[in-house]
């Protein structure tokens, strides 16, 4: 039998969703364990962790000094590091609070200074080089499954390069932007979720971050403007999950 790859799952500051989503693989998690040995995964195991990881999954934003130290340490001890989820790739919601950390702390905790080393939330990709970035708040679990299988087989996982809008059309959902005038970010958001929110007839809120390349945020802005949404509303919506772009 081939030797199993050593896998670590590390959580920085986040909602826990991207770590939890691994457990939602259910039986497929056991399939992954044919290829991988879980060395560290705080949410799921009390094992103490190894010294070296073939693959490390890092979720969350760097929001404290502890997060930063952990991230650097994991980077040094792993061969292949995946920034997993929109927190890790774009900063997600907590990074969109645009105040300096001192002011934020003061507003929430009062005048205690910063004894625990809080930092302004930034995505993992701002601090270290990553081998693969998989966005989504949370990411689609099929994608992480496929990426881990690819890596185990020595194949480089593929990044999606089309918007949510395309998946919406393929599913033949009604366009909520045109038909209902809802603010939908589908045209400019990374595809890969199978346009799941459009199934509910609701506009995409952009949780997978902006698709770089040919897409046209300026065009999207104009469309929303013509639908009557004001500038501040639109800009905040654009930046909610992606104040930091990789």
């Amino acid at each position: 039998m081939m030797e199993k790859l050593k896998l670590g799952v590390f959580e920085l500051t986040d909602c826990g969703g991207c770590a939890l989503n691994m457990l939602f693989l259910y039986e497929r998690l056991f399939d992954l364990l044919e290829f991988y040995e879980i060395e560290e995964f705080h949410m799921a195991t009390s094992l103490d962790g190894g010294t070296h990881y073939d693959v490390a999954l890092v979720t969350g934003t760097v929001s404290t000094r502890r997060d930063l130290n952990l991230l650097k340490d994991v980077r040094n001890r792993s061969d292949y590091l995946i920034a997993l989820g929109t927190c890790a790739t774009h900063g997600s919601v907590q990074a969109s609070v645009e105040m300096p950390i001192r002011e934020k702390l003061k507003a929430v905790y009062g005048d205690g200074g910063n004894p625990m080393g809080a930092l302004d939330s930034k995505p993992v990709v701002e601090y270290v080089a990553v081998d693969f970035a998989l966005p989504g708040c949370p990411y689609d679990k099929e994608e992480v499954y496929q990426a881990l299988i690819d890596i185990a087989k020595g194949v480089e996982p593929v990044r999606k390069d089309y918007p949510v809008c395309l998946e919406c059309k393929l599913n033949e959902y009604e366009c909520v932007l045109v038909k209902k005038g809802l603010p939908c970010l589908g045209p400019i958001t990374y595809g890969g979720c199978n346009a799941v929110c459009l199934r509910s007839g609701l506009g995409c809120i952009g949780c997978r971050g902006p698709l770089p390349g040919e897409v046209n945020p300026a065009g999207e802005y104009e469309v929303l403007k013509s639908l009557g949404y004001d500038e501040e509303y639109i800009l905040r919506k654009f930046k909610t999950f992606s104040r930091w772009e990789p």
Partner: protein
Amino acid sequence: MIIETREFTRVEGNGKAEVVIEDDEVKDVRLKIIEGPRFFELLTLGRHYRDVPDLEARICAICYLAHSVASVIGIERAFGVEVPEEVSLLRELGLIGEFLESHSLHLYLLVAPDLFGYPDAIRMASRHGELVREGLAIKAFGNRLRVLVGGREIHGINVKPGGFGRYPTVEELERIERESEALLRLAKRSVRLFARLQPYGARAGHFVATDGYLWGERLISDEGGKFHYTERIEERSPVYSFAKQSHYMGETFLVGALPRLLLKSSMLTPTARRLFEEHGEKLETGYVSYNNLAQAIELVYSIERAKEIARRLLDRGIEGENVPVEPREGEGIGYVEAPRGVLIHHYRMDASGNVTYSNIITPTALNHAMIEASLLTEARGLYGETDEGEMVKRLEETVRAFDPCISCSVHLVNL
């Protein structure tokens, strides 16, 4: 001397504890929530009400729907919106899905390894595979309810003020009715398993819950009477933690499955009530380790109730109409029972429907002082009696009994 535990494992989020020893006695225990702050109240400030529930969902993945629903109720109360029975029943169904998903994760994957002496459920599965799979089956069912009501397993955006983006179909509801029938047996078995737990931790000074089983207009406690959180609960910020601590009229208190059963057993479904009565003596002692037993009984409640709701909706038919929501200046509080206990979303809105004030208090923040008190009791009993490694392990189990959600606990504000 200070004994520091490593970061807790098999809990949600990042935290650890320090045991302060002076003159060979345990003087104090500090629970340190080291997860970074996420500033949710600042995030929602100034935002339009329609976007708020989806943002608040991101506070926590395990109980995202409780956050969405609390947020939606807070917003509706601020605007004076009333929703019909159909919408309420569906919200309840979603919250029940969350109870199932969260409790089964906690009991089968996080606590059961302690009962059998394994570091995790994956290793435990080699000897107790059937048990792990039973837990996963309940969890998957819970998640299907979350998808149905919330739109996705995690962070769905289907729950809106006034109703839903999409309503379930007759076939989907029939399937839920059938599946719940089959799962009830598994849930009953879990009660027997978790009834084996020993008492540990501290006994709470008080118990607090919402006045309805899954949400309410006000809070209730063991002292009687209904109240708003501002009347009896007080928050403080310790310097060593990103989470605040709360006290009930100056004393420690507990929220969660155990307080729900103790304060609201009359609202349980028939089988759950029988099980509650069977184990009532243990539960009444109020030790936090029995919170796990209470969660197992709630698995039974949730499955029975899911079936009742599906039937009720099928009998009355789904109309799928949302109630119109007209923003106006106002203030509203949403009290919801998240799986881990009372969750509070409090908002003030301006006339165009933007948030001007927001305060969110999560179950783990409410339990924070109680967790510390339990650690102190345990550390006092264990120090000198067992070696340090064993003590640290038992402390970790004590924290786990609360099913803490550390990610949730780190953002509270009074602006």
